[in-house]
């Protein structure tokens, strides 16, 4: 329903995308064909991938706890309510793991990771930043204009952009830590979050967008991004925080590159052809569309129909709306 009434991220009547977020930009940078399958054609897997669902539930549970805690509930009461709604939400979830890593993302391990995290960071040294309007900076959706737009949106050569590019997204949390402001991003992983893990975030498309967006949204100097990693093991969960920084020069370079990437995307959209990047098929445990791309072009549609479905297309313009899953608690004034 929301997608119907939401604005399209594409220029009317074209496949030229003007509203971008880290997800759609990540697809484009990884492989234009992957971008086409998701963004243009709207294919999505029949089953929500386990890692994705686990991550969504983890984020939602921690968000629920923060919201409940802000209603002046004690830690144990907030924990109880967080666990209650989490169990209700995942009651119908029947994960079917295909990999060793997916085997660790069980419902019980999710519950344990949430409770252990909230125990560990009960007195969190990273405090949620309070915005100018007095609200805590949690799940901050952002959307801002870049100073250029698609060539197709120029009314006449060298004229004004009628539609500039937009950069959109969500910041999990903005925190103050050691007298500096950081964007905090939560991740769950089954690998050990050591230096090898954290090195993957520099350079990194998502983290650079967050550093850039944090500065624009808050109009305050953001020192960097804290990656709040939760390792999910068989019988334990472990939490490690790592830092990634971007200098103004690095952000400037990223914007320069972005101009090139968006120009490429406009070219693909104008041509109506998004080429495969066959060096990316094995990345991140293997692309979900690898099986499709390995088939002859004329039979791919049939295979897509068998394993995927066309649903709502990803829309960077829809702000993340955290479900109000928390039940009303008797005697609590909200």
């Amino acid at each position, binding site marked *: 329903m929301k997608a119907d009434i939401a604005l399209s991220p594409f220029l009317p009547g074209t496949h030229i995308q003007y509203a971008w977020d880290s997800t759609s930009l990540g697809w484009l940078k990884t492989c234009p064909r992957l971008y086409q399958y998701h963004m243009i054609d709207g294919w999505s897997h029949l089953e929500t991938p386990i890692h994705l669902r686990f991550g969504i539930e983890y984020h939602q549970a921690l968000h629920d706890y923060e919201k409940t805690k802000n209603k002046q509930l004690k830690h144990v009461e907030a924990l109880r309510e967080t666990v209650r709604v989490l169990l209700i939400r995942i*009651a119908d979830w029947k994960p079917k793991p295909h990999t060793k890593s997916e085997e660790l993302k069980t419902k019980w391990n999710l519950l344990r990771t949430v409770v252990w995290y909230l125990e560990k960071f009960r007195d969190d040294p990273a405090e949620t930043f309070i915005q100018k309007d007095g609200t805590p900076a949690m799940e901050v959706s952002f959307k801002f204009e870049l100073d250029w737009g698609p060539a197709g949106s120029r009314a006449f050569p060298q004229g004004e952009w009628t539609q500039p590019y937009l950069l959109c997204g969500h910041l999990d949390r903005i925190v103050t830590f050691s007298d500096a402001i950081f964007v905090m991003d939560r991740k769950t992983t089954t690998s050990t979050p050591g230096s090898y893990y954290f090195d993957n975030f520099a350079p990194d498309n998502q983290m650079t967008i967050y550093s850039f967006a944090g500065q624009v949204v808050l109009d305050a100097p953001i020192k960097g991004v804290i990656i709040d990693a939760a390792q999910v093991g068989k019988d334990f969960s472990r939490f490690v925080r790592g830092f990634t920084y971007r200098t103004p020069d690095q952000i400037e370079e990223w914007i320069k590159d972005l101009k090139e990437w968006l120009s490429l995307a406009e070219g693909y959209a104008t041509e109506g052809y998004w080429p495969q990047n066959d060096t990316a098929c094995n990345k991140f445990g293997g692309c979900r569309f690898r099986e499709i791309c390995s088939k002859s072009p004329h039979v791919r549609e049939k295979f897509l129909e068998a394993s995927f479905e066309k649903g709502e297309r990803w829309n960077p313009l829809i702000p993340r709306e955290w479900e109000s899953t928390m039940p009303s608690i008797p005697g609590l004034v909200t």
Partner: protein
Amino acid sequence: MPNEIDQLMLLDPLNLSDVDLDKIVDYLRGSYKTHEQAAKFSKSGEASDKPKIDLEKIGLVKAKPPLVRRKI
């Protein structure tokens, strides 16, 4: 996981009372404490009651020759 927690996890979450939920939460908080304590002790080596294996003695590692410092 104790049998009681196991049983609670099998119930319809809508039927779980506050007491049931507290049992689950208490169990998880307890397991966190146990894990943290074990991790602390194993780091400091204080509470390790495991026998130490001398790899040199069983011939898996060659004994290092003593370091001789030459006088200049």
